[in-house]
């Protein structure tokens, strides 16, 4: 996501995430940096597990790391935000069911994006592509969570994937 200033780039980055989470839960997304030199943290409700709307059994924690970089795109920018890591923990009845991780900050752990799913592979790292928070929310919907507006969610999911694909350097995968 891009902007004329670093702050605007961060706000453009946060907005689709804020909109997506807002259809499934209540709370606050925080970002701690508008400075290109610093890696920033985007965190939902202090990184705690947050109950999602629906049957009350599904909760999610979200944290992401980002960098503000310059872009040569003449129509946007000159600043854009790129994600440099994420941790999404989807729990059912307070037990982690699907943990999507990408934490290249550690050289001694799996550095590529991966999934922990103890039901499939206890403590194992299942390789994945880049996962968007919208994908995790979509999975939450299959587990018993519900957005407060199904039509709005479907439209937002498609819009956010399209926006992400326009700026993605990894690709967004099939959809």
């Amino acid at each position, binding site marked *: 996501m891009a902007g004329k200033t670093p702050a605007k780039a961060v706000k453009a980055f946060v907005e689709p995430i*804020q909109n997506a989470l*807002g259809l499934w839960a209540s709370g606050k997304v925080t970002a701690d*940096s508008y400075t290109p030199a*610093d890696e920033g*943290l985007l965190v939902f409700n202090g990184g705690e597990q947050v109950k999602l709307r629906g049957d009350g059994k599904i909760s999610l924690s979200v944290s992401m790391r980002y960098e503000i970089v310059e872009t040569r795109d003449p129509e946007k920018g000159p600043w854009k935000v790129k994600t440099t890591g994420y941790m999404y*923990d989807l729990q059912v009845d307070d037990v982690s069911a699907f943990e999507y991780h990408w934490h290249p900050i550690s050289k*001694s752990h799996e550095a590529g994006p991966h999934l922990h799913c103890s039901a499939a592979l206890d*403590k194992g790292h299942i390789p994945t592509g880049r996962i968007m928070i919208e994908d995790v929310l979509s999975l939450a919907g299959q587990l018993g969570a519900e957005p407060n507006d199904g039509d709005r969610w479907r439209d937002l999911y498609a819009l956010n994937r399209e926006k992400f694909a326009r700026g993605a350097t990894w690709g967004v995968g099939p959809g």
Partner: protein
Amino acid sequence: MAVDFEKISADRSWKIFDDAAHRLLGIDGATFARRWDGGVYDGDADTGVMKVAMLRPSGR
């Protein structure tokens, strides 16, 4: 909008990290940072360790 946005200070970001270290590992953020930098958690498979590490503010 059910989810608000707030730009927070470095101190508040550290508090989020410190709270997570207490909540998930029973230690404070400074202790976690010291142990992480000293390699104590190298190869540790506990996802709670990585959750806390990923909440550590940059440069601190």
